[in-house]
């Protein structure tokens, strides 16, 4: 490794932030761009399943909270696209990668929101899992990324509490409401566990990312942490986790889950989830339908500039 490589890794090891103007290995830059943009895309695509319930939220208070939440996600997308841009890639390039299917986004957003309880379940489970994944990233070696994550995590944990509270309200409610809550847990439980990625022995990129401090815990570690917390929350809610093999291991002090259906994970990742096509089409449609708007805004700005120059 050449000298600047040593200096770079030394900084990383000593937890000194790498900044946009610092030298960095090409692979580090590429890995970061991929990771940050995937995360940004996930925020944007992730708006869709929740936005699906804005017009049908069951109370005005919930409607306002949901609108604000989805708006926050758009904001997260903005922070993250900006962080990615500091690595020398434009937002339009990143959109293009998303729209052509080259870039990925979290496959959890390829599941549909069928009932209002899904909004609770997403907040409780999906945001809960996201926070597990994201809190360590607040100390990521790349400065702009780490700083974006600090803001994001703060809002995410607010969303997570809101989601849990929606579930709690349902579970303290009528029989029909409890049924909605249980049905949502049934559908979201396993996909949420898959959010942590493949099993450690099947996760090739992890070692390098750990060395670069853009990953600090293994997939299985984070998943276990999530399971331990969430199973107890489910018990508190009076809901049944849809896993017959789930049991508490008194030796390790951890909950052991049954086997995850990795074939489903692979199917969804590779495009065959319930909503992959629908989500991508919605994003592409928004982008294409908006083309004339963006052109008009640009043309107007250009005319204004010319007028100012003449004056």
């Amino acid at each position, binding site marked *: 490794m050449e000298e600047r490589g040593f200096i770079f890794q030394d900084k990383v090891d000593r937890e000194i932030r790498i900044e946009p103007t610092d030298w960095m290995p090409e692979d580090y830059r590429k890995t970061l761009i991929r990771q940050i943009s995937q995360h940004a895309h996930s925020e944007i695509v992730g708006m869709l399943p929740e936005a699906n319930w804005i017009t049908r939220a069951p109370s005005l208070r919930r409607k306002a909270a949901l609108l604000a939440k989805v*708006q926050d996600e758009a904001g997260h997308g*903005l922070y993250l696209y900006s962080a990615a841009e500091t690595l020398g890639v434009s937002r339009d390039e990143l959109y293009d990668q998303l729209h052509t299917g080259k870039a990925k986004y979290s496959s959890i957003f390829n599941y549909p929101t069928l009932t209002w309880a899904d909004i609770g379940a997403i907040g409780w489970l999906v945001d809960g899992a996201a926070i597990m994944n994201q809190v360590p990233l607040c100390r990521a070696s790349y400065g702009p990324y780490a700083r974006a994550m600090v803001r994001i995590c703060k809002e995410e944990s607010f969303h997570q509490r809101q989601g849990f509270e929606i579930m709690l309200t349902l579970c303290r409610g009528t029989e029909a409401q409890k049924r909605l809550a249980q049905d949502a847990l049934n559908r979201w439980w396993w996909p949420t566990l898959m959010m942590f990625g493949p099993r450690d022995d099947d996760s090739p990129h992890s070692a390098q990312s750990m060395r670069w401090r853009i990953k600090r815990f293994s997939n299985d570690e984070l998943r276990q942490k999530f399971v331990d917390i969430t199973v107890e929350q489910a018990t508190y809610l009076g809901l049944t986790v849809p896993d017959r093999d789930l049991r508490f291991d008194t030796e390790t002090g951890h909950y052991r889950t049954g086997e995850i259906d990795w074939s489903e994970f692979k199917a969804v990742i590779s495009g065959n989830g319930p909503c992959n096509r629908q989500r991508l089409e919605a994003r592409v449609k928004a982008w294409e339908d908006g083309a004339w708007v963006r052109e008009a805004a640009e043309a*107007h700005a250009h005319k204004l500039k010319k007028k100012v120059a003449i004056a």
Partner: protein
Amino acid sequence: MPLPTYLLHLGDDALVLGHRNSEWCGHGPVLEQDIALTNIALDLIGQARLFYQYAATVLGDGVTEDSLAYLRDVYEYRNCLLVEQPNGDWAHTTLRQFFFSAYQYELYKAMKTSTDEQLSAIGTRSLKEVTYHLRWSGEWVVRLGDGTEESRARLLKALETLWMYTGELFRPAPYEEVLVEAGVAVAVDSLEGSWMEHVRRVLGQAGLTVPLAPAFQAGGKTGAHSEHLGYVLAEMQFMQRAYPGSTW
């Protein structure tokens, strides 16, 4: 009872336009504008809640902001026709917002001097929000009118479609007339001049002129709506209708 009806009218206007704007959430042409329009939707729904909450205290008898929003059918809604029109494209949405914000701007400015303290407080508070809505939407009208040939054509189409709904904003309904005499309600007919001035100025900046066609559509304020509102309510009210008497 004119006061609760008036409050429902004010709340329905805000809620229905907030609903329409919220349909854009996640589908806007630019991320920043998606956020901006969602913000406006949030403000409008917030305003609706203030009017409904006030109406609920006047009506008593277990009425809540949610029972008012979710348990009235279309003929009981009192919003003007403009706000229930479908979103159409970005030109329709921003022009509709501009027409309505320019009206709300005058409305809330006048409401600040209402003899009803609560209305006066709501007017003061909401005016700040609407000032931003008006600037934002007005800027879009200018941008689209001045932008490209396509954006100008779309804005013209929006103008042709929406203009006929603007007249209703300034026609007082019977429940307003009673309350105007009492100094409670705003005399909407007195707002038309300033509104028209503002609209003329912004359309002028966009290179357009105020249409000569009559702005004749009316009826929403007394419950005679277009066919669009029923679909809005079927969707919006589903949960409260399907799971009556639940807490959310």
